[in-house]
């Protein structure tokens, strides 16, 4: 017989709970989806990073991953489709003391938002971009996008896709990001560590997080469920830190090169702006206040 005392002991609270808007749960993500896993890594990274979370701002666009901003208990902005990066740019430049993280999906950041992300990387704006790549548009029911591997079945490629896909790390490397990494939702420890690294690294940082979409991608392509995808990530991922980003393109169920590909230093936007203006204007230069609200 079970003693009453054995039942009343409350289970230990999940350490990430205080950082989530638990009054908004349950979330919208499907069973087997990787977005929640990536969010768990993110919150654990925040805890370990010892960052001042009152100064953290999370910005999302539109889509399943775009819902992240709505679930985190920080200053958080759910913006328009594709425009999280320029919103984050304005936020960061007007108050450089903020730590600004863009959390969004592959379609949002690289199709409709593609122009913005390459320019933010070029400028080296001090924002951190976490891109959950589930290989299609999930929120709208599973349409193909710029990361969909050729031959994949989606609702808008019913006979299999034929468009070549973007290699996101290569694109971000070429555009000038100072940190570029790729992990999958199987690699929770490595992903968490990478997130801590970008929180501490100045400049435009980018992490691609491969995530299952069992409802729309795996199911339509007869690739099993979320667990099968985890097994695939485990078996076919190869860690190659420093791999040339031109060599890390993905294909449908082929080998996945993961790791930290780029980690370099370049002056960030505001540093360049101040230096140029100070050099040209001399005594006439007036430093922007720490926050433009002052």
């Amino acid at each position, binding site marked *: 017989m079970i003693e009453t005392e054995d039942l009343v002991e409350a289970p230990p609270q999940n350490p990430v709970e205080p950082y989530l808007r638990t009054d908004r749960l349950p979330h919208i993500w499907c069973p087997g989806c990787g977005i929640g896993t990536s969010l768990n890594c993110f919150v654990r990274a925040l805890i370990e990073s010892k960052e001042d979370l009152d100064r953290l701002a999370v910005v999302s666009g539109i889509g399943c991953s775009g819902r992240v901003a709505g679930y985190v208990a920080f200053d958080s*902005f*759910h913006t328009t489709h594709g425009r999280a990066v*320029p*919103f984050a740019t*304005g936020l960061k430049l*007007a108050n450089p003391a903020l730590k600004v993280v863009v959390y969004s999906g592959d379609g949002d950041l690289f199709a409709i938002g593609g122009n913005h992300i390459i320019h933010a990387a070029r400028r080296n704006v001090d924002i951190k971009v976490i891109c959950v790549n589930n290989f299609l548009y999930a929120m709208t029911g599973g349409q193909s996008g710029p990361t969909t591997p050729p031959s994949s079945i989606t609702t808008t490629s019913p006979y299999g896709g034929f468009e070549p896909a973007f290699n996101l790390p290569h694109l971000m490397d070429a555009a000038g990001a100072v940190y570029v990494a790729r992990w999958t939702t199987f690699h929770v420890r490595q992903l968490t560590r990478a997130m801590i690294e970008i929180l501490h690294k100045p400049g435009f940082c980018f992490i691609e997080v491969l995530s299952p979409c069992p409802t729309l991608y795996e199911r339509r392509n007869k690739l099993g469920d979320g667990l099968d995808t985890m097994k695939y990530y485990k078996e076919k991922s190869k860690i190659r830190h420093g791999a040339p980003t031109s060599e890390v393109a993905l294909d449908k169920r082929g080998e996945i090169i993961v790791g930290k590909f780029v980690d370099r230093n370049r002056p960030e936007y505001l540093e360049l702006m101040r230096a140029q203006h100070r050099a040209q204007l001399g005594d006439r230069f007036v430093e922007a206040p720490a926050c433009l609200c002052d």
Partner: protein
Amino acid sequence: MRADPRGVLTGVHFMDGDHACCEGALAAGARFAAGYPITPSTEVVERFAARIPTIGGVFIQMEDELAASIAILGAVWAGAKAFTVTSGPGFSLMMEHVGLAVMTETPCVIVNVQRGGPSTGLPTLPAQGDMMQARWGSHGDYEIIALSPNSPQECFDLTVRAFNLAEKYRTPVMFMMDEVVGHMTEKVVIPPAEEIEVYPRRYTRKSPGEYKPFEPCEDLVPEMVRAGTGYRFHITGVTHDERGYPLINPEAQDKLVRRLKEKIRRAAGELAFYEEEGTDAADVIVVSYGITSRVAQRAIDLARAKGIRVGKLRLITIWPFPDEKIRELARRTGAFVVPELNLGQIVREVERAAAGAARTYAVPHAGGTVHRPEQILSVIEEAAR
């Protein structure tokens, strides 16, 4: 509160409308601008780019107008006063973020130095063809504030006012210039900072525990916070409740959209700025705005010389449309004559507000130049018969 003197170029200047608009923004406290080059508006941000490093602030030239129009919203939520500047084609791209600014009640100013359209149209020549776009350009149902200056002096004065109204009502304000007003050089008097009234942001005094980002005050406008101050707030373009949380149902939609519209509608009286002259015993009243009002003045003078009793109503506020004023004038005049550099936009509003109490005559012009005074005069004569 009074203007920050660092942004106020006090003195008497010989300045064009675009530059005066920039000075107005600086006087109003704008310390962040994002832009994308487009004729005939570029001089505004060119001046901002030159001036802001000597004042303390940020200008960024973005990759397109979509980016410029949302970068300013980010800057506002960081605590800055911010604006962007464009012309027709860019204005079309910015419509997405007019909607986001309305929905998230983000105070900002969007300047449109109008040129001929549709599409690329007449890049270097004037028009007033975006007046309805300023009202209805973003999707969904909303109200907006739009002002229209007719001189470089007003480009200064009304830009300050546009920022103040944006803060007071927590809404984007459209500043509807035109190519001629933008490029016309005249005397501009910039008063001392202590004579410039600046409306402060409506920051809450509530603690993070008590504060709800979209809980309206008595005037239906909620109090604001900024990022990084411990409130850990959420804003979204999705229909939301007072906490700012997405809530997708007809009740939440009705409550939110009605309030967003009503906060502007109920203030329509105090928002109705205009210049009125000689309307008391007028058989005809010319209703105009922007550069067209200055051509209309000549037509009014010519008509009066011919013995026609003509009044003048120059609209400064275009949106919300001053229905009450038109209604009142319609009761005591025979006809309205409405010249504008489009083929009939604001004239429809005049006709609607007059509701048959007075006749309404358009003086359409497709743009590219201004009217000839005689074109307006001949319609005044027709209306007076």
